């Protein structure tokens, strides 16, 4: 089974998710949402090929019943799933230039 690694960019995404939930959904749901996302990372590590790669060899997975899309790259030599981004599928995207 592959292992998953979280990029700093994806960690920032997770922090944005927590910040948004804290401000708009209350604290009670943060734990469960974050646990579902982290468990999904485990699932991706167990089945890295479950989602087809796009032209840039990135894979995208939408968490069932949740509005979050995980973008990851599977590195075969290292048997690693590298989580690149956690984005909201229905988010109003930023009008400003993103910090990359």
């Amino acid at each position, binding site marked *: 089974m592959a*292992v*998953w*690694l*979280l*990029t*700093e*960019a*994806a*960690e920032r995404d*997770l*922090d944005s998710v*927590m*910040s948004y939930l*804290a401000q708009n959904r209350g*604290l009670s749901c*943060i*734990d469960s949402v*974050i646990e579902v996302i*982290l468990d999904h*990372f*485990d699932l991706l*590590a167990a089945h890295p090929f479950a989602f087809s790669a796009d032209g*840039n060899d*990135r894979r995208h997975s939408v968490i069932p019943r949740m509005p979050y899309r995980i*973008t990851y*790259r599977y590195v075969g030599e290292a048997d690693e799933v*590298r989580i*690149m*981004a956690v*984005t909201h599928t229905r988010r109003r*995207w*930023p*009008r400003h230039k*993103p910090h*990359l």
Partner: protein
Amino acid sequence: MFNVKLHLVPASDKAIGFEVVNAIKLPKLRSLVAADLVGDVEVVGRRGGWVIRVITGEASPPVLAAATGAIRVFTTADSAIQQLIRLGITRFQVIADEYESGTLRASRPDRAVALTQMAEYDAWLKAKLDGVDAGMNAGTEGMLSSDEARRRVHERLLHYKAGRHKG
């Protein structure tokens, strides 16, 4: 040639500014063409498009209709001509006396905005992922092991909870 009993359907669409009494659907027109029973055909310009009128000798020549019965309005004369060619009709008249340019469908600025936003989002996401990729390739993008990531995420959770309790 015109002594043919056409099975015409009442036209259900008069929104094109065209007093239509009868309409003919494509399969019927195709069978008439195949039987060489069609006389003249006209491509007639109306408001926002073109219709195909079949001259049958009747007082109210039928106009080509869609399967729903609504008059079929082609956005361009070219598309109407292509339809006629597919039917095997290569000679016809084009009457543009009453043609008015414009669109039949109301504009959808909301869809235009949505499509623009979608394109912006795609560009934003691509730039973000390209940046992460570049960082990984250059070795500048830090990566946390799953255990370390879980620990840090739970730390942040506590931070948010503590912040809310203080507030």
